[in-house]
């Protein structure tokens, strides 16, 4: 499974544990880690930057996950990049808001790391391995 993964996560611990979960599930993909919402917004506003899957936290400094999502969906070349929310919140209002803003999936980060590893593996295998996108698999680019 190839493809570039973008992880938007402000907690260094969570980022490290997510990267480890990807490694242990056999993913050797390039992963770009962005530490706050503003970095993510800038990333998607720069022409030429793109990726194949976004794992997005909601509670982020500077700009929250909803703003990042809106930026992604606003950009015509990025509007179908799969975005899966990884959040601590299982609040209905957060879930509704995420889907309204164009999220493709919403997962509550489980506390149990066994379950988290399993979940990250399944998300990666589905979105990078099984899911088909409308045209070029890699979008954006120069």
């Amino acid at each position, binding site marked *: 499974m190839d493809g570039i993964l973008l992880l938007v996560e402000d907690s260094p*611990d969570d980022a490290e544990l997510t990267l*480890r979960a990807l490694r242990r599930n056999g993913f050797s993909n390039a992963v770009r880690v962005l530490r706050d919402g503003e970095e993510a917004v800038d990333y998607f506003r720069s022409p030429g930057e793109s990726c194949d899957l976004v794992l997005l936290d909601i*509670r982020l400094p500077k700009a929250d996950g909803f703003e990042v999502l809106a930026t992604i969906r606003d950009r015509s070349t990025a509007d179908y990049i799969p975005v899966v929310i990884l959040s601590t919140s299982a609040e209905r209002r957060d879930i509704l808001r995420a889907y309204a803003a164009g999220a493709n999936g919403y997962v509550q980060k489980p506390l149990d790391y066994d379950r988290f590893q399993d979940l990250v593996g399944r998300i990666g295998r589905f979105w990078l391995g099984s899911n088909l996108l409308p045209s070029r698999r890699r979008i954006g680019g120069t």
Partner: protein
Amino acid sequence: MPDHHPGSRPEESRRSWSDVLQGMQDEIAGLDPRYRVVAAALRELDAFSYSASHDLRAPLRGIDGFSLALLEEYGESLDETARGYIDRIRAATRRMAGLIDDLLALSRISRTRPVVEPVSLTGICVNLAAALRQREPDRDLRFEVAEAMEVVGDRGLLTIAIQNLLENAAKYTRHSEPAIIEIDLIPSEDGPGFQVLRVRDNGAGFDMRYQDQLFAPFRRLHSDAEFPGTGIGLATVQRVATVHGGRVWGIGAPGAGAEFFLALPAGGRDGVRESE
């Protein structure tokens, strides 16, 4: 005494119960300016517990994750005692997570605007009882659920309340053989607009001297070793009762079982009707 339950007034029967509650709250606020201050403080407290619950969970994920990483990557170079310590770190993490989840569930209830409709409590009780029996198949756990128990309320919130009442009864009857838990609906002393759900068990009971502590969050009458728990269950029931304009109380005696009562707006002819 004037008959003033909302269902008896046709113009009010067209309004949702939450609108009626809102109206009452506005009326109280008009009578006493202190009410606004209290309401604002309550909202702030709920926002705080929402945020605290989420922010408290994050470090716990780190503790569990790195403990497991240690075990998976360096487990072979650790002896059995060291691995046992890691297991205990993870178990303590899970207990803490349980507390936070309960706290979060509690704060969520207060922030819920109830969607009021006629609800069959019998159906809810039967399903919950089956799930509880399945969870502990080795116990002789008997539920006696009355037929046709109808009230009006928010189905989701009522399910949460009854689940807590039944789990509570199942827990405190674990030394009773057989454990018998009876659930029925009885008339209310609060007037015709209310009915009372009664959950009666033959379990450990409690001393009536401590009845005030029963519904306070995190207050427990038993040690964790005796009956494990977080002390949030009955506090949750009380929140659900309050949201519905009802109340909850309990009577019991040590070793002689407990009875819990949840007063709710009645269904049927005398009850509040939701027309939408």
